[in-house]
């Protein structure tokens, strides 16, 4: 039983049902039912044409459901019109599905949930586990999302940027439950990149691959965070890095720079350095300048201050930091780091402890607390 194959067929099967006239919400339910059936039936009786099998089963599932609760006339119209499950414009359908599931009328959490189910083929239970909410809550979130987009025409062109934001959110959620959301985000972005030639889609895919390549090195055996400088670079996934860099170079050749390409370029420069000390911080600062020009995001300027601290020394980094609002998330953590580099261990220790109190997640809080403890132990020894 190949679950990956099954899930990869989800969007095209759903697209075929919608093109046959099924409304999106009902078609999506029918495809989920067909997936569940496949899981039970295929191990003992594998179909010769998995996609054809899914289309047939999902279509009948849809007709049964329609029969149960809507007018017979509409159903008969549909049956009369039923085309043969021949070759379908799978690529276009997949792209339309991405647009629909990331529609701007959806909240970010709804768009994420709908994308994972309708494009990713995950079950409601898997999505609920990944986001640590009850299955009933996730089921409602998905059905509301489907209602929200029910009036949207399926063949309407969408905005790639909204799709990329949703995929980036999925990637950043990381890992919980039995679904690896980062890997899932890469799979979905890869599929999107195959469906549309767009440098920012490629840029996001490259960014994900470059970050994912470092995953094994990012966590200590005790679960603690390992910073980029301290990571064992021998544990980075070189294959993934090579692929990310290749995709990024091809994207940059289009000469249509966007924020994901710029972020990927920064990740690539980190990935390219044999040791932390050999990192090309001057170029990284230049990419942060590009990124700041593209997004005007204070978070980017904060990261830029770190890079400036490495390229031109901690005093320069602190000067760049001074220009920023100190209520920015992680501002204190960056200040602590730069003060430590500048040799002011007392200030650094105090700021690390303060940053730990403001940390938005447990791993960062523990990491910052350890930094403070490390400096305090050294100072008071």
């Amino acid at each position, binding site marked *: 039983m190949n679950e990956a194959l099954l899930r990869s067929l989800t969007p095209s099967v759903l697209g075929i049902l919608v093109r046959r006239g099924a409304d999106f919400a009902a078609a999506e339910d029918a495809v989920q039912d067909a997936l569940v059936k496949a899981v039970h039936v295929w191990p003992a009786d594998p179909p010769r044409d998995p996609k054809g099998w899914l289309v047939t089963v999902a279509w009948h599932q849809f007709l049964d459901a329609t029969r149960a609760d809507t007018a017979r006339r509409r159903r008969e119209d549909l049956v009369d019109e039923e085309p043969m499950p021949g070759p379908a414009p799978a690529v276009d359908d997949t792209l339309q599905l991405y647009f629909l599931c990331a529609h701007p009328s959806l909240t970010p959490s709804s768009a994420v949930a709908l994308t994972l189910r309708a494009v990713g083929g995950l079950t409601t239970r898997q999505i609920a586990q990944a986001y*640590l909410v009850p299955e*009933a809550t996730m089921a*409602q979130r998905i059905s509301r999302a489907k209602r929200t987009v029910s009036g949207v025409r399926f063949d309407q062109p969408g905005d790639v940027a909204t799709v990329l934001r949703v995929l980036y959110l999925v990637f950043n959620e990381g890992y919980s439950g039995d679904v690896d959301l980062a890997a899932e985000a890469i799979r979905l972005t890869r599929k999107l990149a195959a469906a549309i030639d767009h440098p920012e889609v490629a840029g996001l895919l490259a960014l994900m691959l470059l970050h994912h390549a470092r*995953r094994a090195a990012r966590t200590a055996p005790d679960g603690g965070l390992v910073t*980029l*400088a301290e990571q064992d670079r021998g544990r980075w996934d070189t294959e993934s890095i090579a692929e990310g860099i290749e995709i990024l170079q091809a994207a940059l050749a289009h000469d249509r720079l966007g924020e994901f390409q710029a972020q990927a370029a920064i990740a690539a420069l980190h990935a390219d350095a044999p040791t932390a000390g050999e990192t090309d911080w001057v170029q990284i600062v230049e990419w942060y300048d590009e990124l700041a020009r593209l997004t005007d995001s204070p978070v980017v300027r904060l990261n830029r201050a770190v890079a400036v601290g490495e390229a031109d020394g901690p005093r320069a980094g602190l000067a760049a930091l001074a220009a920023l609002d100190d209520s920015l998330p*992680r501002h204190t953590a960056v200040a602590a780091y730069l003060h430590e580099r500048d040799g002011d261990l007392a200030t650094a220790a105090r700021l690390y402890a303060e940053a730990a109190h403001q*940390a938005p997640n447990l791993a960062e809080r523990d990491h910052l607390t350890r930094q403070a403890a490390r400096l305090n132990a050294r100072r008071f020894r």
Partner: protein
Amino acid sequence: MAKYLLLKHYRGAPAAVNDVPMDQWTPEEISAHVQYMNDFAARLEETGEFVDSQALAPGGMFVRYDGEGHPPVTDGPFAETKDLIAGWMVIDVDSYERAVELAGELSAAPGAGGKPIHEWLELRPFLAHSPTTTECTLK
């Protein structure tokens, strides 16, 4: 997508506007209050924002380890403890603003005279999972 805890206190929160102890309400007012809380939870489930809701009994103990070979030491209950948690609701919402809005709604549950209690609820963000792409900002 962030989780928040809405914490309800028996004691320890600032006094509510409509601060009449529940045992002095009419039975109908109590029913209306319970109904409001149930409806609120049901509505959140429908919006896909509900995670959990629990009530706690007021009587509790402090317990601590007392060394190898000794049973744990218990102490309490402390009638005069300043802060006492009555229960909680956990929500999963798109923004801090939405969390505040929902806490406000929950605080409007009806009490004595059928009027909103205006109870102070404590709103606490969960520490999230570490996002995949933090290490650049963490340095």
